[in-house]
């Protein structure tokens, strides 16, 4: 239960304001817990005098069994003024469906947003049994504090056994906050998920920059939490005949819960542009491109193929490309049909970010460059000599192709 140290409590009322269940009231300058407290813990870390605490015990087998089903965070993005689920959500649903069927349990997707939330029935068509919609004016834009508050309330009420997030920048911020708040085990950046003979979620992830894989379980706490790399799993075909429910979750959220204040926003890409995470064809540049000016050639090659340009971490560090175009462990994971690596040696951290590419062409001076280990076609040579020639030939090819 929630304990209140009345000697420490100053009656400031912060807990009363941020409790998602209105389960705390301050009477005579002392906070009091009501019967509807769900032990979600939203108040504990925010008490300025550390007067609140929750005694948590490592759950017994019996307690663990009282948690059931999987929940996926249905992260949304803004498209033409609407909030729609991201592609990674469909990838998670295809995996979630497979795992839930193994356990014969329910698969839910929880979406948070304001009145602009749309296209939620596609989540059911993709395999969800239930969509839980959390709507509130304060949820129109992602804030880790606001979202943590709502999701911790949902977890303490729904008691799911597993909770998955896309390992997107937002997912990687939200999941650890939530895990720390509820004292839950969490595995980052999974590339493989399975269920073991005890019904536990086995989470596989690369470690040491991708040099080694580790399988991890969370044996003591529920829900078992994991963030999952985008573009590792395929999304699966939607089936519009699938049946499911869309339910609303009552959101109580106070502006006091959100302590970060957004001053301004700078978008680097127009809404119409395809991000590298969603691109089918990527031409990626590395240090071997020598000069920033040479990137126009890389862009030209990408244009000739109808693809987009990306780059390695080295180029982000040099400020040649923005972080929104970085492929690799500390950047984005891509899964295109075709990946052309120009002047990229292929450090393990880079390879981890593009391993899901179906076809890889690499151009590099060094015949021992690790990138050639994952390339379907490797060209050992001067990229800045080969690329212009390739563009010239491709331009002819396209014209030739159109004539046919």
């Amino acid at each position, binding site marked *: 239960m929630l304990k209140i140290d009345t000697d420490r409590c100053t009656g400031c009322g912060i807990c009363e304001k941020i409790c998602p269940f209105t389960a705390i009231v301050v009477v005579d300058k002392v906070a009091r817990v009501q019967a509807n407290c769900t032990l979600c813990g939203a108040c504990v870390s925010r008490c300025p005098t550390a007067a609140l605490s929750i005694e948590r015990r490592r759950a017994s087998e019996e307690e663990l069994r009282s948690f059931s089903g999987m929940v996926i965070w249905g992260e949304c993005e803004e498209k033409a003024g609407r909030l729609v689920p991201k592609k990674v959500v469909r990838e998670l649903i295809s995996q979630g469906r497979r795992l839930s069927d193994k356990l014969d349990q329910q698969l839910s997707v929880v979406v948070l947003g304001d009145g602009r939330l749309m296209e939620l029935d596609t989540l059911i068509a993709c395999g969800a049994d239930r969509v839980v919609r959390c709507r509130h004016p304060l949820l129109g834009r992602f804030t880790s504090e606001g979202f943590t508050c709502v999701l911790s309330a949902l977890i303490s009420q729904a008691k799911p056994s597993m909770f998955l997030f896309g390992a997107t920048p937002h997912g990687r911020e939200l999941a650890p906050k939530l895990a720390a708040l509820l004292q839950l085990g969490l595995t*980052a950046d999974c590339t493989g998920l399975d269920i073991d003979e005890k019904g536990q979620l086995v989470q596989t992830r690369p470690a040491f920059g991708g040099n080694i894989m580790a399988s991890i379980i969370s044996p003591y*706490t529920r829900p078992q939490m994991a963030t999952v790399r985008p573009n590792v799993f395929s999304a699966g075909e939607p089936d519009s005949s699938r049946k499911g429910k869309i339910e609303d979750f009552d959101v109580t959220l106070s502006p006091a819960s959100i302590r970060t204040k957004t001053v301004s926003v700078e978008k680097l890409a127009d809404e119409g542009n395809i991000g590298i995470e969603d691109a089918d064809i990527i031409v990626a540049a590395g240090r071997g491109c020598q000069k920033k000016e040479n990137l126009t050639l890389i862009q030209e090659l990408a244009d000739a193929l109808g693809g987009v340009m990306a780059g390695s971490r080295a180029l982000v560090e040099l400020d040649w490309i923005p972080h*929104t175009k970085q492929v690799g462990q500390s950047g984005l994971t891509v899964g295109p049909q075709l990946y052309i690596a120009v002047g990229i040696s292929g450090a393990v951290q880079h390879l981890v970010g593009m391993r899901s590419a179906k076809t890889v062409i690499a151009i590099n001076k060094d015949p021992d460059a690790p990138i050639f280990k994952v390339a379907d076609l490797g060209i050992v040579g001067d990229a800045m000599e080969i690329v212009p020639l390739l563009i010239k030939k491709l331009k002819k090819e396209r014209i030739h192709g159109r004539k046919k």
Partner: protein
Amino acid sequence: MKILVCIKQVPEITDVTINPETGTLMREGVSSILNPFCEYAMEAALGLKRQRHDTELVAISMGPPQAGSALMRCLEMGADRAALLSDAQFAGSDTWATALTLAEAIKRLEGDFDLILVGKQAIDGDTAQVGPELAEILGLPGIMYAVDIELGPDRKRVRVKREVENGYEVVEIRLPGLVSMSKGPLMRSVSSFQDILDARKKELRVLSASDLELDQDKLGLLGSLTQVVEIFPPRVKSRGELIDGSDAEAATEKAITFLRERRFI
């Protein structure tokens, strides 16, 4: 003003190789460095200290005794003092146990801080979890993936430019708070001989579990909520064709044929 920078010592990942027979990591002879993202956090802290000379800068790390050399590097860069949490009981900590140990140490020893700076992730584990977990345990507002940080004129707020998926966002929080850094200066600063001499005169405390008065069952492997069950080498894709590009004309012709075969053109 008091700034804490939490740092980690990591192996130079590019030097790590796999023993093909056993599938285990060969870490012998691999050099240890200050995690680059932690170095950015140090740089950001030093930037703030240059603006406000009365700033006290404390570097904190948790790790084996040799992690002291990463803290030494922080002292050379300009930290005023450093603390290393080092104890066999801390071994095997997952991100939760790490964040909890750091949080407890900070609460007990450096509770009067204004700002905590961390790197967005370490290049060996790459989880990016300890920063947000630490903020949550300490009940602090946090901003992740920062590229620039500015102290408000009243010293009570920081304004931070941070990376978001489609660009940047400028966000403000009231202090105390936590910021994780994603970028820093292009050139690593090199310690001068004088920096090295000065660093040796600064305080580097080593603290054990008993110094922190922490319960044993909250520490290390025992306190960890996740458990590694298996470690194995990644699946390696079979190598494709490697052609000589010294004849650019012939090589590009081959590439075109390849693209045609795979129906990209």
